[in-house]
């Protein structure tokens, strides 16, 4: 073997090792243009070397054209999207960015912070394992920050990181950090926030984003990237029960790709909670039918066990009646199916919601017609208190009571993010109207 071959083989092994151990973390960002959110994301991309030479060249050129006088380039331009945004200097929709370290790949949902675009933050945060909320060091926690924290808490995002940006622009940075931490602790009690960490950064100069700053000797905590790299990837708990909404029933019959599989009958879905093993007793929600798992296929290969987050096809011991829209779970653990539900809705529709409205409710892979029987309260963001309400406007957070045309196996969102999540759909044109959380409350 020559030296080159040896090196190549070592490289290949190293790549394989990294691929095997790399995990995926989904994060969302919240903050306004003025907080320097685009610059922070640009900085994360740039300093993790996720910006390619041609992109950086384009941004450097654009910065120069616009009279940029700072160091490097205007990194905010890296996240510039559509023409309308460039013209108006705003962000109008969720954009997805990617960066990676040797141990973790990140999918970042970059969500605009304007009040009118809370719907986008809900989109980004509903899927996120962690949210980065941006605060301008000169202003501290403002109403918009409270809104972002309230949405993060409501959606039960596993981790919240507060990046205190422009820390270089304040006279007494240590006091700013302390005061933000104090405010967060107080808000945490009101909002039931997960443990929240604040990091002082300067996105413009790169301090404490990826690289530790020498200009903040008083700060001994981690950099923003250190934190993101170390967060547990999924907040799933080991004692969660197995859940899988059935997406498809797979019966190849004569068409089977393998002639010996013509009698195959499998139930395809994503494991949304817990884990499933061959031999486990399972139950179908609502019907209460029971059977046993005889085989698990993960993307076409046989496995003995499948964890949360994997797409599988299950074979069962008995010919139970199961179709798309059914929920499979560990036997004896499924919730009672009910036809009346109380939920918190984040209203995303253009026209207001009023009592009596008829909607569709999507839950897992099931859909049911429903009527909004009452609107029971609204969260006032400024005071974080619950107020009376008889309608919901765009971006409002309201408590409602729904009557379902057929019972659904709903779980409380406070114990199950997937099992307690609802999507409200307009039955006429199919538009997505609201994000719903079963049993949620908006505080006292």
């Amino acid at each position, binding site marked *: 073997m020559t030296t080159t071959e040896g090196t190549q083989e070592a490289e290949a092994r190293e790549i394989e090792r990294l691929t095997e151990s790399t995990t995926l973390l989904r994060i969302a960002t919240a903050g306004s243009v003025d907080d320097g959110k685009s610059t922070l994301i640009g900085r994360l991309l740039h300093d993790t070397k996720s910006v390619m030479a041609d992109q950086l060249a384009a941004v450097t050129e654009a910065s120069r054209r616009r009279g940029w006088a700072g160091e490097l380039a205007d990194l905010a331009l890296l996240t510039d999207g559509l023409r309308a945004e460039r013209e108006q200097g705003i962000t109008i929709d969720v954009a997805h960015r990617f960066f990676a370290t040797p141990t973790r790949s990140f999918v970042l949902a970059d969500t605009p912070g304007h009040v009118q675009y809370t719907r986008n933050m809900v989109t980004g945060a509903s899927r996120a394992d962690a949210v980065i909320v941006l605060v301008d060091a000169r202003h501290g926690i403002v109403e918009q920050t409270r809104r972002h924290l309230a949405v993060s808490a409501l959606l039960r995002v596993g981790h919240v990181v507060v990046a205190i940006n422009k820390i270089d622009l304040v006279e007494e940075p240590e006091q700013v950090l302390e005061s933000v931490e104090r405010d967060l602790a107080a808000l945490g009690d009101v909002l039931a926030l997960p443990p929240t960490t604040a990091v002082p950064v300067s996105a413009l100069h790169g301090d404490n984003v990826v690289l530790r700053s020498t200009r903040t000797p008083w700060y001994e905590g981690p950099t923003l990237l250190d934190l993101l790299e170390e967060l547990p990837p999924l907040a799933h708990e080991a004692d969660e029960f197995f859940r899988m909404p059935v997406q498809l029933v797979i019966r190849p019959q004569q068409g*089977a*790709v393998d002639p010996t599989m013509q009698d195959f009958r499998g139930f395809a879905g994503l494991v949304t909670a817990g884990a499933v093993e061959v031999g486990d007793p399972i139950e179908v929600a609502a019907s209460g039918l029971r059977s046993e798992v005889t085989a698990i296929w993960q993307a*076409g290969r046989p496995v003995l066990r499948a964890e949360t987050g994997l797409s599988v096809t299950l074979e069962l011991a008995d010919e139970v009646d199961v179709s798309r829209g059914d929920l499979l779970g560990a036997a004896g653990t499924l919730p009672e199916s009910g036809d009346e539900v109380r939920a918190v809705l984040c209203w995303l529709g253009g026209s207001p919601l009023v009592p009596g409205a008829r909607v569709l409710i999507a839950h897992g892979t099931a859909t049911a017609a429903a009527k909004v029987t009452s609107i029971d309260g609204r969260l006032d963001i400024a005071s974080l208190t619950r107020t009376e309400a008889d309608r919901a406007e765009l971006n409002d957070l309201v408590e409602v009571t729904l009557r379902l045309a057929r019972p659904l196996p709903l779980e409380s969102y406070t114990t199950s993010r997937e099992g307690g999540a609802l999507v409200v759909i307009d039955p006429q044109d199919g538009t997505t109207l609201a994000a719903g959380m079963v049993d949620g409350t908006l505080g006292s």
Partner: protein
Amino acid sequence: MTQVTTAPTLLDALEAEAIHIIREALGQLERPVMLFSGGKDSMLMLHLAAKAVWPAPVPFPLLHVDTGHNFPEVLDFRDRTAEKYGTEIVVARVQDYLDDGRLRERADGTRNPLQTLPLLDAIEEGRFDGVFGGGRRDEDKARAKERVVSLRSAFGEWDPKNQRPELWSMYNTRHRPGEHVRVFPLSNWTELDVWRYIAREGVDLPSLYYAHEREVFERDGMLLSPGPWTAPRPGETVGVRRVRYRTVGDMSCTGAVPSDAADVGAIVAEVAASTLTERGATRADDRLSEAAMEDRKKEGYF
């Protein structure tokens, strides 16, 4: 008490997400179709679709918009693949539209922007209500803003200001008659993820992706293959170089890159170390303007 279970590795997580998206589309839509060029992203998407329904066969046809300037070896690969997966392939030809005058050749000779009309016609003729596309969000600014399930008007238009919120892992494919949805199972994959997964799974690809000797000439920093549509201009000299393609689109605007990466392991290493994005390095049409992709997408492009 709150002990965390093992998280899936990156590739397992991306595979599971893509399969989940494909199954949601199949469960909700009446007549889906998959855009298939024979390129690596469409090949990966087909591979994942086959896994999503295994051991049942792929339950939808493939659709290819042929610019008339495609690499012959890729067309051959496309047809062999459709046969291997036992599915029908519908081909919409830009050349037919040029021949009968519905489209006119552009001054720059590039045909990629001409694909939109034949694509929309094929969707309408096939009465397809869902179209799987291999687009990835890391490819371009406009793609970065698109939802996994993206609603298109009766004219195929994308309205970036009026996209549906996409919540948790629930995908809403509902649409009115005449509208359709585009479904992008590979939204969250990067180019490196695609190659790592192709290496892991041993997915077949056209030979153009691997390093080979080829006659090329240089234009605007790209290596183009001389042919009936891309003749070298005065001052551009043709020479044999060792190259490979990172994307396999229209021959008139898809460039090769110098490379010695002759197998998939070498490509993973090359992509991992690469400093140029896929499109910037090899697609002349995306360089047309800062907003090139945005404009084409709004008109109904892939």
